[in-house]
């Protein structure tokens, strides 16, 4: 007997992973949570049937969503992570001594419990032996409404823009993030993929809404094999620091942080996105960076 996990990347494209066994399956108050064991990718977590992370390639996502802003902001101390109940982003943040506090806002406590039990590779840090994490199990949109001028960095480590993560792709959410950041704060978000039409549409919509709240908005990319098309984007929205001009290769190298994907070269290269992506972004900006790049 063969057991395969299949996710529809579009109506006409499927992605399948051979599974050895299913370790966990339960419908929480918010979503279906499943954990599988596979020969190729190790253990992996799915939410509502969508691949969230695998042990084999999660380092790419978590390093890129964390080290890029951390290498730009010169002294990020107070960090807010929205979503991210698997712990991967927190694990990367804890590599920085300058980080004083991490507020983790995850709507679904069960995700944290399941990940701590089955995915210690990312979630073991959530035992909070560092003493730096504060947990808030609530809707991110609700949490952020009450914050103002508090954070140096906000990382929006969300699911897709449907299901429980829906509210984290809205203009009211990005506006509230702007308010919650200090005057030199940075917001980084999971920004979907530019490739398949539906994902590209979600990506454009997110960009359009972020541009409404932040003056400096860029996207950067990474290659994530288990996400649809493999080509994935992150949003970099900033009140003050420029993602490349304020990035100090030397300062970051001196920290001596070990990474598998992220390097200062990758950092720089990641912001040079393909032509069609520039076009998609410029199409939804009233008068922004990507428009200028396209000579419009």
């Amino acid at each position: 007997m063969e057991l395969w996990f299949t996710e529809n990347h579009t109506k006409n494209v499927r992605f399948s992973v051979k599974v050895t066994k299913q370790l966990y399956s339960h419908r929480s108050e918010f979503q279906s949570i499943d954990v599988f064991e596979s020969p190729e990718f190790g253990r992996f977590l799915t939410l509502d049937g969508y691949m969230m992370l695998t042990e084999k390639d999660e380092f790419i996502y978590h390093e890129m969503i964390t080290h890029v802003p951390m290498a730009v902001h010169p002294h990020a101390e107070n960090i807010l992570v929205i979503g991210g109940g698997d712990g991967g982003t927190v694990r990367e943040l804890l590599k920085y001594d300058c980080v004083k506090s991490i507020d983790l806002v995850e709507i679904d406590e069960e995700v944290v419990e399941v990940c701590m039990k089955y995915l210690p590779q990312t979630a073991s840090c959530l035992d909070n032996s560092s003493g730096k994490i504060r947990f808030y199990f609530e809707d991110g949109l609700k949490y952020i409404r009450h914050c103002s001028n508090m954070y140096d960095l906000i990382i929006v480590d969300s699911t897709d823009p449907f299901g429980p993560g829906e509210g984290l792709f809205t203009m009211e959410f990005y506006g509230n993030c702007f308010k919650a950041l200090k005057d030199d704060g940075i917001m980084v978000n999971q920004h979907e993929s530019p490739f398949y039409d539906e994902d590209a549409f979600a990506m454009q919509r997110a960009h359009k809404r972020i541009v409404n709240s932040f003056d400096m908005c860029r996207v950067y990319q990474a290659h994530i094999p288990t996400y649809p098309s493999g080509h994935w984007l992150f949003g970099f929205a900033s009140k003050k620091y420029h993602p490349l001009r304020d990035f100090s290769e030397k300062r970051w190298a001196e920290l001596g942080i070990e990474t598998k994907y992220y390097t200062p070269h990758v950092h720089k290269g990641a912001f040079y996105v393909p032509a069609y992506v520039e076009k998609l972004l410029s199409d939804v900006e009233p008068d922004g960076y990507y428009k200028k790049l396209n000579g419009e």
Partner: protein
Amino acid sequence: MIGQTPGAFAGASIPCRNADMQGLRSFTEPDACPAAKEKCEMDQNRAPVYEALTRLKTMRIVPFDVPGHKRGRGNKELTDFLGPRCMEVDVNSMKPLDNLCHPVSVIKEAEELAAGAFGAAHAFFMVGGTTSAVQSMILSAVKEGDEIILPRNVHRSVINAMILCGAVPVYVNPETNARLGISLGMRVSEVERAIMEHPSAKAVVVNNPTYYGICSDIRSIVKLAHEHNMLVLADEAHGTHFYFGKDMPAAAMHAGADIAAVSMHKSGGSLTQSSFLLTGPRVNSDHVRQMINLTQTTSGSYLLMSSLDISRRNLALNGVRIFDRIRSLVSYAREEINEIGDYYAYSRELVNGDSIFDFDETKLSVHTLDTGLAGIEVYDILRDDYDIQTEFGDMGNLLAYVSVGDREKDIERLISALSEIRRRFKRDKTGMLETEYINPMVMETPRTAFYADKEQLPIERSAGRVCSEFVMCYPPGIPILAPGELITDQIIAYIAYAKEKGCTLLGTEDIDTELINVLK
């Protein structure tokens, strides 16, 4: 099963139709009748129209009747769009399905079940919206030259019905809350004054509640009106849930009102355009049916009727739970919105025992003027910038309609968006128009004015003339001017301000509301 719907029969004996009653206003006190007991024992689990449609599907009848799409086969594009299950039940009246104009079987049963659920003597299925229910209600109660007492903040459908039947409006000034700029309910003393001044009036109309959730003291008004041989007609377009929720304001039928138009498709969950007309024990329901049949279609939609049937069953069985949840969603939203600052989401604290006798806590009405933004401006920003569609915005208020279909996370979005709008757009509020009640000067009956010889003038040059048409913001659809009323400078200024703030104005023949028809 009735035991599961506390409130539906609270306090009152079950009304029943007095078969001997001839005219509409031949008052007899309803006494305990056998039908009452029968209704209590009705099985609200049943949905006769829905059941008949389900049976029909299995009969595989060959249709050589209308509609011509023949269960969808003749219109593939529409069937792909709406779905085959929808098209299969879009059928015509036939023996197994009864006939809306003259119900004798399944529609009759369904209407009886609805009457039982609402605590009415009779319930009519209406397929032309609550507009048609309101019109049938007015047409049933008054005729040419009859006076009818009503608050000025009635829906346009009430005045439209007066154009049709020639009744004469006697307006009761609904008190206005100066801070919120909204019309309230009628004071009982004001109703009494109108009754004393117009003792031959035939009926009193009550909004139960207003669009904003404000209730008059309907029980006292019923008592007063009945003492003077007048009928009480309730516009319950926004009050379906009063019949099914716990601790709700009084529903018209429970308060002893004679006829009520109830928008099942608003808080009741049925399809748009489906509605109930309810009658009490003093009213001859056969007469009401005749009036309904004057204007209602003879091809009643079974989509609409089955939606009424299924929704009535759902509310009868689950209404208490459903409306408890809505109330708690709204009260959460209200607390959070009030915490933002400058917004005022109001509720029962407004209750003053008279012009605000009660307040419907399921309504999420938010006063916005202290942010320096008109309600309509917040309404527009919510839609344009935040992809959130609310029910309406007026000069000073925003109304978000919260219902059985809402999710917690959507409530969070609304609250967060309001908080953001305040952060981004808050400005000084000086110069914002304080709405006040404009006492209408009725110069002609709506019917006389509507059909009179008239000429078209630019609105700004129409002061001192009598208008022959409506001007209103829609929603809420409450007339600023109704046919037969004197146009004043104050009204012209209000219309200009409403336009400037982006309200959709309609009612005039001139689609841009630049010109207005006035009497020659």
